């Protein structure tokens, strides 16, 4: 998962920006008189990578955006989230458990080293070793030989020859090929293993771009990427380079965009939501992303267990007016959720059986709550934990309000100062109430929204949910040999979730960004990051 927590600082000064946007709405001429003429180099918004630029150790968007441009994996994702072969010539399997991967010939790293089976196998093994403490090591969890207890070789990886290797998984996983476009699976040149720290500062990849020079990465300021002339895949650079500028605040970045000093911005500040369309016109982007926000009620919370819990969860879900909140608080930059996944994922459906529990229905909510009270009367205060550094207070208060009014219970937000504080309590099970959660997909597949979050004992199963029927449907889906067949099982699995509601889906986050008139052909990928290689400078 790529972490986003940029809203932290922006929130502290958002008040000031509000006052300002009222004058901004008068319309801008947008003239690019100060735009530099630096030979077609596109400037893009970004944030300082929080980790060294090593594919297996990059788990947040700041670094991920750069890694994706500097490296090429076996497959890449187009704007619709469909996977296409990149370095891979073919990925074949008969049982969804053993995969034979054949590479295209002629790929090289920018230091001249050829990209071979070894480049992948060594990189994956590095990422999986416990002692290397790589943040994305869990991506190799499914491969035979992986261990959380000690350093152990991924015995499931077998090199056949320079351009062929096989992968044996611990159990069938139909969407394994879909995952291979994620950065954790990128290859590494041999030089990386000699000194990984140095490599993280000056990565050498095989992607459409390369780090422009030794000192191209000015920490906390920007990183300059130049086109890789030897690149031979589909993602060829359509510009003279990309400079990712790191911003401290979104407001500052947005003003830079208006002033023509920044070309592409992935995220506009909250204060600009209402004026975005006026100021950017059709250069504004507002579309659902592969991100969902949910409200999690721990499965063992008092009054939320068993049949009583099921009624209460459904009542709470129906008491939340998602339409109103997304409009009033998020100015339409969130889309009310229809399921547990995201509309940008292949296989998504807005009419999964049981999904009517996500529609606002005050009368039904009251009725269900009363039925639950008949089992055992509700006492106490319903709290919603959230991190106040992420711009969550407004909607949490709105939800709490709506629960108070509809269900007549006492409900309130339970703020944690920072994201890390909330996570600590959630991880330790120390949280005494409901809490917010969010999930951004690692790769465009339905399973990624279900397995890691609701599977019994799964890594991010914060609710502590366990349902044998759900687990079995997931397993059947994973063993399917076609994506369509797999998606049918995953949809059935969602029907189970709609009954139990281990998490209450709230809304899909939208990607809300834009570009200056200095560039054209700006398209946002399934993961909300613009496809920067396509962008052309006017």
């Amino acid at each position, binding site marked *: 998962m790529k972490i986003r927590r940029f809203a932290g600082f922006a929130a502290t000064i958002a008040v000031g920006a509000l006052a300002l946007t009222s004058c901004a709405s008068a319309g801008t001429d947008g003239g690019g008189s100060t735009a530099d003429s630096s030979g077609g180099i596109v400037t893009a918004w970004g944030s300082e990578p929080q980790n060294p630029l090593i594919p297996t150790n990059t788990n947040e968007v700041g670094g991920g955006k750069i890694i994706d441009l500097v490296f090429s994996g076996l497959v890449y994702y187009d704007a619709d989230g469909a996977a296409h072969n990149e370095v891979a010539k073919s990925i074949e399997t008969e049982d969804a458990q053993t995969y034979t991967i054949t590479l295209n010939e002629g790929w090289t790293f920018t230091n001249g080293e050829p990209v071979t089976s070894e480049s992948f196998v060594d990189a994956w093994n590095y990422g999986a070793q*416990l002692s290397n403490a790589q943040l994305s090591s869990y991506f190799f969890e499914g491969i035979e030989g992986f261990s959380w207890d000690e350093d152990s070789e991924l015995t499931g990886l077998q090199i056949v020859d320079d351009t062929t290797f096989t992968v044996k998984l611990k159990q069938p996983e139909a969407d394994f090929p879909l995952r291979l476009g994620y950065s954790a699976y990128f290859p590494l040149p041999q030089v990386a293993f000699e000194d990984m720290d140095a490599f993280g500062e000056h990565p050498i990849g095989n992607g459409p771009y390369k780090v422009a020079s030794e000192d191209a990465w000015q920490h906390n*300021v920007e990183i300059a990427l130049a086109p890789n002339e030897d690149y031979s895949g589909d993602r060829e650079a359509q510009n003279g380079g990309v400079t990712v500028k790191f911003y401290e605040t979104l407001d500052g970045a947005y003003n*830079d965009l208006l*002033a023509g000093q920044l070309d592409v911005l992935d995220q506009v500040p909250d204060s600009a939501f209402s004026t975005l369309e006026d100021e950017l016109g059709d250069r504004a982007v507002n579309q659902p992303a592969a991100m969902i926000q949910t409200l999690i009620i721990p499965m063992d919370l008092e009054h939320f267990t068993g049949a009583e819990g099921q009624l209460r969860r459904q009542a709470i879900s129906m008491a939340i007016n998602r339409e109103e909140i997304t409009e009033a608080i998020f100015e339409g930059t969130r889309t009310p959720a229809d399921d547990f996944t995201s509309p940008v994922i292949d296989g998504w459906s807005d009419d999964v059986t049981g999904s009517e529990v996500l529609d606002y229905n005050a009368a039904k909510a009251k009725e269900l709550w009363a039925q639950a009270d008949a089992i055992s009367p509700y006492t106490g205060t319903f709290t919603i934990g959230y991190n106040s550094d992420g711009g969550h207070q407004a909607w949490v208060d709105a939800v709490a309000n709506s629960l108070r009014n509809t269900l007549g219970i006492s409900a309130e937000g339970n703020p944690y100062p920072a994201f890390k504080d909330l996570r600590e309590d959630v991880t330790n099970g120390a949280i005494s109430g409901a809490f917010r959660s969010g999930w951004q997909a690692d790769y465009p597949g339905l399973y990624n929204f279900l397995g890691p979050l609701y599977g019994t004992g799964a890594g991010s199963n914060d609710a502590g949910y366990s349902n044998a029927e759900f687990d079995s449907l997931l397993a059947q889906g994973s063993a399917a040999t076609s994506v369509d067949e797999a998606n049918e099982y995953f949809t059935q699995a969602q029907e189970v979730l709609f009954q139990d509601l281990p998490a209450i889906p709230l809304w899909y986050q939208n990607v809300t960004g834009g570009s200056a008139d200095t560039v054209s052909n700006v398209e946002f990928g399934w993961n909300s990051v613009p496809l920067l290689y396509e962008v052309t400078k006017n």
Partner: protein
Amino acid sequence: MAWYVGRRLLQMIPVFLGATLLIYAMVFLLPGDPVAALGGERGLNPAVAAQIRAEYNLDKPFLVQYLLYLQGIFTFDLGTTFSGRPVTDVMADAFPVTFQLAVMALAFEAVFGIAAGVIAGLRKGKAFDATVLVLSLLVVAVPTFVIGFVMQFVVGVKLRWLPTAVGSDVSFTSLIMPAIVLGAVSFAYVLRLTRNSVAENLTADHVRTATAKGLSRPRVVSVHVLRNSLIPVVTFLGADLGALMGGAIITEGIFNINGVGGTLFRAIQQGQSTTVVSVTTVLVIVYIVANLLVDLLYAALDPRIRYA
């Protein structure tokens, strides 16, 4: 004099030790687990988290952590951030920019604040005086980020006179606007301090004597009034240098300057104690040195003050 300076510098050692211990303890006591946060919403596998904790000594008791940090200082190794960068590199990036910004802001508030203050003080009660008093009150009352955003939008986006953000282009031109914003509030204080001080000194006995001796008006003002009036102003400016360096976070955020404020903010958010302690300690030292300079300036301004 040299003895005095030496003694003052020696006093920095206990202050340094006390400050590092105190700040380290405060960061240690911050709620939340920085390592858990590295994994995002997904959370980190316990095995990986334990590895990372060991790498950054986060698994050791507080005092051991602190002593290891102190040990590092004497070998000029302040540790690394979670992104693997040496803290010394992070500081070497941040301090020069912020220092340049703070000095520019200080120069702005000193030059314009004192000049306007002297004029206002000499013409107490006149139109100019009344105008600057109202204007300076306004500047003090309006929060810095409002001034910052308005200036950025008007001067940067609309008029396009100056760059909207600094980023990689750290130059005199790009820092003008941030320096004005950063120095704005202090400018108002300096102006008011100078104005009151000058107005008061104009009625002092020694000024009356000087005027009675037949000295010219410019000489009376520059030597007898101004020199005496500057003592409170210099005290303020000295303390302000430290405040400007540590307090530039809002301004740095608005104008996207990779300075001390942002570095500190990120470090606190991520719970990176070594960065927080190192940066804050340098700020403490800046305060101490600035105060020492102020004390030495007193002697130059007021002949009655002598240090031995």
